[in-house]
């Protein structure tokens, strides 16, 4: 019970950290989210003067010459991130000290649009600085024109797209990764306390023992996720479909508990289980987060293999097709069946519980040859 509330308070503290992070992002001194990746984002540009093509950083954004109607169509199809319109006489106007208006069209639902916006802003400043310097040098200080950019965009402020979609989904999944110690205690603890002997002597099968212990942890996780969601909603986070979000996070906890139980069933003691769990959780976190990032950049169907992607889309209010749901659910089901099967089979083995414990290679050999498995 104490661990449960300690974990909840840790999660609660994270809201405060999270909020301060957002405040920083939104401030003028905000943290740049622009990744340095070739071809990460592209922007269609209508710029007869060649001003933007000359100054924009090609290592960040691909500049594609285009026109208004083609570009808007490309944005809708996801082929490009935005469209920048620069007046044809921009260079001439700047030279004569007049201001110019550039217009950038962005799809705010695409988180890469933040990169385009940052880069266009930055380019405008570079152009301004460059001309200011040249005019200062020619002793005509009245010509310190700064190009202004008008943004035409829809949706939420851009950096918050990434923060809300990625960081919030990570926050929502955190409780799942905080329960490893309880699973370890309930399985490895039986070995360390040497109570496994009387437990196995009960009129229960090893499968019932493993499933029973896992269910107890799953129910505790569900309670914590439920409370956590309530806290986030009270704290003002915009979470659409909270019930479905809760159900998906709970479903995701089942295979994670299964995998943790496999580690716990094989481990001799807490120390070994702790090391094993750290390694395994790196893989689990990677499996959950990488498809989310992939989805943000490519909107690929396969990204839905991670339940985290589905949860992110659910709380963002996106409409999700049946195949997308099915992919995530099949992944949960398959990983659950495999992990619980291995955990039960390990717990049924005398040598795993009472020793001498076989090596992993030996277990794999037994698995392949169906010996003792």
């Amino acid at each position, binding site marked *: 019970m104490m661990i449960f509330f300690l974990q909840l308070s840790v999660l609660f503290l994270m809201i405060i950290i999270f909020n301060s992070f957002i405040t920083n992002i939104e401030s003028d001194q905000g943290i740049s989210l622009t990744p340095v990746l070739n071809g990460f984002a592209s922007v269609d540009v209508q710029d007869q003067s060649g001003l933007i093509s000359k100054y924009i950083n090609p290592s960040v954004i691909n500049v594609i010459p285009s026109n208004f109607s083609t570009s808007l169509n490309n944005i809708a199809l996801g082929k490009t991130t935005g469209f920048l319109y620069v007046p044809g006489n921009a260079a001439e106007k700047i030279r004569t000290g007049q201001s110019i208006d550039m217009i950038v069209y962005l799809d705010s639902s695409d988180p890469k649009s933040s990169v385009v916006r940052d880069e266009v802003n930055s380019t405008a400043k570079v152009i301004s600085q460059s001309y200011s310097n040249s005019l200062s040098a020619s002793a005509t200080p009245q010509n310190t024109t700064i190009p202004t950019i008008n943004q035409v965009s829809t949706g939420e402020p851009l950096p918050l797209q990434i923060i809300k979609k990625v960081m919030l989904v990570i926050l929502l999944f955190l409780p799942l990764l905080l329960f490893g110690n309880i699973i370890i205690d309930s399985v490895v603890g039986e070995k360390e306390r040497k109570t496994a*002997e009387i437990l196995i002597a009960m*009129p229960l099968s090893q499968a019932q023992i493993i499933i029973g212990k896992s269910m107890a942890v799953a129910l505790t996780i569900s309670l914590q996720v439920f409370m956590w969601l309530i806290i986030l909603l009270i704290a003002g986070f915009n979470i659409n479909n909270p019930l479905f979000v809760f159900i998906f996070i709970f479903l995701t906890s089942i295979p994670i508990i299964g995998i943790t139980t496999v580690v716990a069933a094989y481990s001799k003691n807490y120390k070994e289980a702790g090391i094993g769990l750290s390694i395994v959780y790196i893989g689990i976190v990677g499996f959950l987060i990488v498809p989310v990032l992939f989805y943000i950049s490519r909107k690929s169907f396969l990204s839905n293999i991670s339940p985290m992607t589905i949860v992110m889309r659910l709380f963002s209010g996106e409409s999700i097709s049946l195949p997308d749901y099915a992919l995530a659910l099949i992944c949960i089901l398959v990983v659950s069946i495999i992990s619980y099967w291995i955990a039960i089979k390990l717990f049924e083995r005398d040598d795993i519980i009472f020793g001498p414990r076989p090596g992993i290679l030996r277990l794999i050999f037994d698995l392949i040859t169906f010996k003792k498995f």
Partner: protein
Amino acid sequence: MDSNEVMIKIESLTKSFGRIKALDNLNLEIKRGELLGIIGPNGAGKTTAIRMACCILKPDFGDIIINGYSIHYDPIKIKSMIGYLPEEPNLYERFKAKDLLKYFAELYGVPNKDIDGRIDELLELVGMTERRDDRINTFSKGLRQRISVARALIHDPDIIILDEPTMGLDPATANSIRTFIMKMKGKKTMILCTHYMEEADSLCDRVAILNKGRIIDVGTPRYLKSKIHGDVILKVKIQKSVDLVNFQKKIMQFSSVGAVDFVDGEFLISLKHRNEISDIVDLFNNEIISINTKEPTLEDVFINTVR
């Protein structure tokens, strides 16, 4: 209750741990209501055998049939019939005594209406009524063993299996456990693994001697003791200078002598009767340092058999 009915039948039981053969073709039958003792040196396979009977371990080969059920096919039914007291009284430390018993009662499927009464009865039996609300982590080893006995009996099992129940306990607690075993004797089928020969001798209907995974001998304590060739053992401590082989030959010529051993400077002479004791003593003449007689014990049988 038919006392001739076989309750537990162990058939060709074999088990290895890695390269170590813990049990090697073990065969044994235990009748309903019988108290069978299993004695043997450390590593003889006693605990392995009873763990298999409790379906905690699986044999590599062979079977145990308990009340008609096989450990391979009906482990759950077998487990529900057995009350098992392991060697170490390891329990869930944070439970209170009564809560621990309630927890196990529920796991064993004791009807809810019977649980409280059963807990009171067992706490009374093991003399722990006063400590019912105390946590396990406040108990001494003796108290833990007593609460473990209560735990093993919570579902009123037909079979009780006790692995070294008195090991490491003070004489008073050990005696209370033995008294409890005596109370249960005849009512339940029991297996008692022990290192204490007197315990096996005084409590058990039959004793099986196990060594290196095999049954060396099995029978009533009286039968086993009779196998060391006599009703009495004459112990004669002699000078080191005597001719041992010559003396041994001479002793064997007496009709009452069943066997002669020389251990730690002492002749151990098994006699069928006491009539010739004085003649044997005369044989040693002035070479005797000390002399005494004793009844053969299971320890003598054990040392004789396992040696």
